[in-house]
């Protein structure tokens, strides 16, 4: 008797649900497709369906999944109305999946789409969305490599004057005349940071000159690995100049890893030792102005350089010379004047010309109503 009652209740509920669904004209999600998500490691499937009309009464969608040979299971949360795409990132490689999109109304009535064709996730070897970026990288890389090897022929390469680098000798000379030290600050970057590497190569050139002039060079480091590399570099510079006796390892030391503790330590050194020249080269954050203003207050000649564009205004304001962005990377080349390195600078300029030409072409095409270049750049972005 109880079973019969249960069956009647279930049938009634079903009839009411179907009746409500039909009374509201609820139609199943159409054109439901499930495909392997492009440009991924085969760990997801993308399900798409057509948008339902606004007055369809659908309040959301629930995705159901069937692993080949198994039953249906609900996956994920209920999706809001208006959704037309769902990425199932919970699949296992090798399994075959089919999907159903279930439309749900506010009254909990449901209607299911047709089951999609079985699909599976596959590993992609190449990200097709990054082809433009890859081509641009190859072109730019080729331009640099070609110019580097072209420079070996001994051609004269013009490099514009960079006042900040012209002043390096002046700063070292001033420190030597005053009998004071030079303080070289590498910033907060780690050894893998491009700006830190650029800064270390500049330091190598500065160390050659301080070795010649026997000017004390003090380098407080924030990273012990950077400190080890810098010690090796400076030692090699002193050896190259034939002054290994003038090298003092204790002048290159680890201070602290804390950002403001480092700033406090360097500021303390500036106030106590009053170096005649301060180099602030590398990656800086909020401490940049604290360091630069303290250096300014002690009357040191300051040469700064950073790739942190947010800190540039502070350094430009407080320092005598500032290497802006790319000038930091060009510095080691500029100071060493090695032909092959100069060639890379020329290749870099070719890249700038390419970008500038793309910008001009893009603006002209946009003004003419043609927007493929903008679309391409947006895709890459």
């Amino acid at each position, binding site marked *: 008797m109880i079973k019969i009652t249960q069956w009647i209740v279930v049938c009634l509920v079903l009839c009411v649900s179907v009746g409500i669904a039909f009374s509201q004209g609820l139609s199943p999600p159409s054109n439901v497709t499930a495909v392997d998500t492009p440009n991924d490691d085969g760990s997801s499937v993308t399900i798409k369906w057509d948008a339902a009309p606004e007055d369809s009464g659908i309040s959301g969608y629930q995705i159901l999944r069937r692993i080949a040979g198994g039953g249906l299971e609900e996956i994920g949360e209920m999706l809001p109305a208006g959704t037309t795409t769902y990425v199932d990132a919970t699949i296992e490689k090798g399994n075959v999946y089919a999907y159903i999109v279930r439309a749900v109304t506010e009254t909990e009535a449901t209607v299911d789409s047709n089951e999609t064709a079985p699909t599976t996730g596959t590993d992609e*070897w190449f990200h097709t969305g990054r082809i433009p970026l890859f081509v641009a*990288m190859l072109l730019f890389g080729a331009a640099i490599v070609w110019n580097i090897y072209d420079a070996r022929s001994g051609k004269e390469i013009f490099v514009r004057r960079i006042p900040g680098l012209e002043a390096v000798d002046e700063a070292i000379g001033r420190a030597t005349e005053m009998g004071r030290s030079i303080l070289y600050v590498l910033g907060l970057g780690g050894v893998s940071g491009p700006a830190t590497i650029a800064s270390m190569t500049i330091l190598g050139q500065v160390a050659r000159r301080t070795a010649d002039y026997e000017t004390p060079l003090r380098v407080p480091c924030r990273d012990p690995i950077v400190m080890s590399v810098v010690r090796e570099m400076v030692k090699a510079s002193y050896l190259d100049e034939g002054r290994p006796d003038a090298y003092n390892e204790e002048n290159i030391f680890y201070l602290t890893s804390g950002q*403001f503790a480092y700033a406090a330590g360097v500021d303390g050194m500036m106030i106590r030792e009053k170096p005649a020249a301060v180099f602030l080269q590398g990656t800086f954050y909020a401490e940049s102005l604290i360091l630069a203003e303290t250096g300014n207050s002690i009357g040191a000649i300051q040469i700064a350089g950073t790739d942190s564009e947010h800190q540039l205004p502070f350094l430009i304001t407080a320092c005598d010379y500032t290497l802006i962005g790319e000038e930091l990377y060009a510095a080691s080349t500029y100071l060493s004047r090695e032909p092959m390195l100069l060639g890379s600078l020329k290749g870099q300029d070719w890249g700038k010309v390419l970008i500038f030409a793309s910008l001009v072409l893009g603006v002209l095409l946009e003004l003419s109503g043609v927007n493929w270049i903008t679309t391409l750049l947006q895709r890459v972005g």
Partner: protein
Amino acid sequence: MRRQVPLILCFVFGVVMMLTQFSPHSFSQGIYEEVLSWALIISPFMLVLGTVTLIQTHVARIRRRTEHWQYSFIIFAGILLMVVIGIPFGPQHPIFVWLFNNVQVPMDATMFSLLAFFIASAAYRAFRARTFEASLLLVTALIVMLGNVPIGDLFWNTVLSGLPWDNGLSDTKQWILDNPNLSARRGIILGVSLGAISQSIRILLGIERSYLGGGD
């Protein structure tokens, strides 16, 4: 040989890591993750190296009685205290947390707060209207500063209420930030990116090798 091996390793790993950025395949992403985890191995060495160097530096200072050598004892006391509490009881121990929150954090905050005064002194020097450029900078800075505070628009909408548009200062500020300022920033970012790529290629090809310790 001492130089060739690092240069070859640098080239191979540099190229492989670059290519993994263009391949979503689980094999290449596996390599990427694996190499990154290798890099993490350096961290414990870094900690040991940093501690040893710090101790060496301050022992030398005390031994030579250099200026303010007494402060080196404070360094040792600090290290010892945090190690004695941190290693047996862990960094969540109330005393460890209390020391961090009541010593380290206020000292950091003190240094950071100095920035406000340094900004004022730097701005004073930068905004002295001695040249056309400095005057331009001064006017722009005034607009941006006033546009950032409610009193700027209050002034504009009351004192200059006869003008045909409202909230002129904040609108002008936004225009300055969105157009000339952003254009200049993007120019710098493009230059920085090209410079970094160029430097990376020089390092990968072994042309720039000063990071290995000077000349050849």
